[in-house]
């Protein structure tokens, strides 16, 4: 009836990122948006939480990679990296919605692209955030880079990605069953066949 879609290693990484990212988004918006500026009067508290969540994410990632003795995450990264002809066709189909949906594997091409962009953004957030942290205290770094601008733009790219992701897993009827996979690990076999026909489901 149910087939395993996500390994515990993948789910751990997903939820590590989900919780730390949402904490960073919430504290970041408090520090950033004028309507929350009065809350941010306690700037030190929000800043510590914001930086603490970032450190927790990277520390957690190191722990997950170190404990991933079966190499699941490495394997997942490889799956996300490789796009076959159907994946390329799927991206075109996702934009034009013309013809039949090209068959997809365990991850569809949109999920692959989203994951790759999110990890790129994590590097950009971290690099610009470290520079922002340093330039508040270190004169040698101040004014040398456009760290604040880059951190802001990365946020404006990340937020629509998160909103779209939440819509697909919480609201959209045909795709929201995938949330079960990320919470419990398994999805219905008939759902998997329909959405991910090239994935054998082991």
């Amino acid at each position, binding site marked *: 009836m149910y087939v395993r879609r996500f390994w515990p290693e993948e789910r751990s990484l997903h939820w590590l990122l989900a919780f730390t990212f949402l904490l960073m988004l919430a504290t970041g918006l408090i520090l950033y948006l004028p309507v929350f500026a009065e809350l941010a009067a306690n700037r030190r508290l929000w800043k510590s939480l914001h930086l603490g969540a970032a450190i927790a994410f990277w520390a957690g990632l190191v722990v997950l990679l170190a404990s991933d003795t079966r190499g699941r995450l490495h394997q997942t990264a490889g799956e996300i990296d490789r796009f*076959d*002809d159907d994946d390329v066709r799927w991206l075109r189909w996702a934009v034009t919605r013309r013809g039949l949906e090209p068959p997809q594997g365990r991850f569809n091409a949109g999920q692959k692209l989203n994951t790759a962009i999110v990890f790129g953004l994590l590097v950009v957030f971290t690099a610009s955030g470290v520079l922002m942290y340093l330039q508040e205290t270190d*004169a040698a770094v101040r004014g040398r880079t456009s760290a604040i601008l880059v951190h802001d733009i990365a946020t404006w790219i990340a937020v629509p990605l998160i909103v779209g992701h939440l819509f697909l897993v919480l609201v959209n009827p045909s795709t929201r069953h995938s949330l079960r996979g990320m919470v419990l690990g398994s999805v219905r076999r008939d759902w998997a066949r329909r959405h991910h026909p090239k994935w054998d489901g082991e």
Partner: protein
Amino acid sequence: MMGEKRLGRGAFLSVVGAGGAGLLFGDRITSALRGPIADAGAVVPNAIKAVFPSGWRIYAINPPWPTFHPQTYQLEITGLVRKPMTLTWSDVAALPAVAQTTTFHCVTGWTVGNVHWKGVRLQTLWDMVEPLPSARYINFVSMERDYVDTLSMSQSTLPEVMLAHTMGGAPLSRAHGAPIRLVIPEMYGYKNVKWLHRIELVPHLHPGFWEQNGYDVDAWVGRSNGY
């Protein structure tokens, strides 16, 4: 036979590369576009502007922000002066005011241009209280506990220094230091004390809050704090 493309790492590296280029060149690109961006900003309704960042970041050290009560507010001018004074809010509002449009620079790297201020020159106050010759520095004390910053007497009468009570045509908001803040565009924001309620003329320099935390006493924009 299926072709296979490494689009995943391509997308990842593109984002990282764009971020790196942005770190190096982003400010130069946006300053080249500043004219068109400002033109576009002029048509955005104020309600939307209130939600989205205007470029300002409000820093405070001891939440919550002080609250201004027009009935009880007092501005005290004390220390080495011949005629110490305590002004009520209506006294302050009645002082001769001047207007200026200047740029506000924060030491952490952000800048807000074209800020329209209206307020009182310090020379107006000095004419009223008559500083003694021994007065060499001024402590500007905030209603926010423990926040104080200083200027020398000669810095206090630089051309664009004022006690501002109006910003962008409206009374100074609580976030920006209601009812009055010190404005000295020549120096970084931490010298621009918000929620001002006491001005003390003193013989010796007492470093201000951020100066006790390692920032320069003379916070000249572009010429201090390592810039």
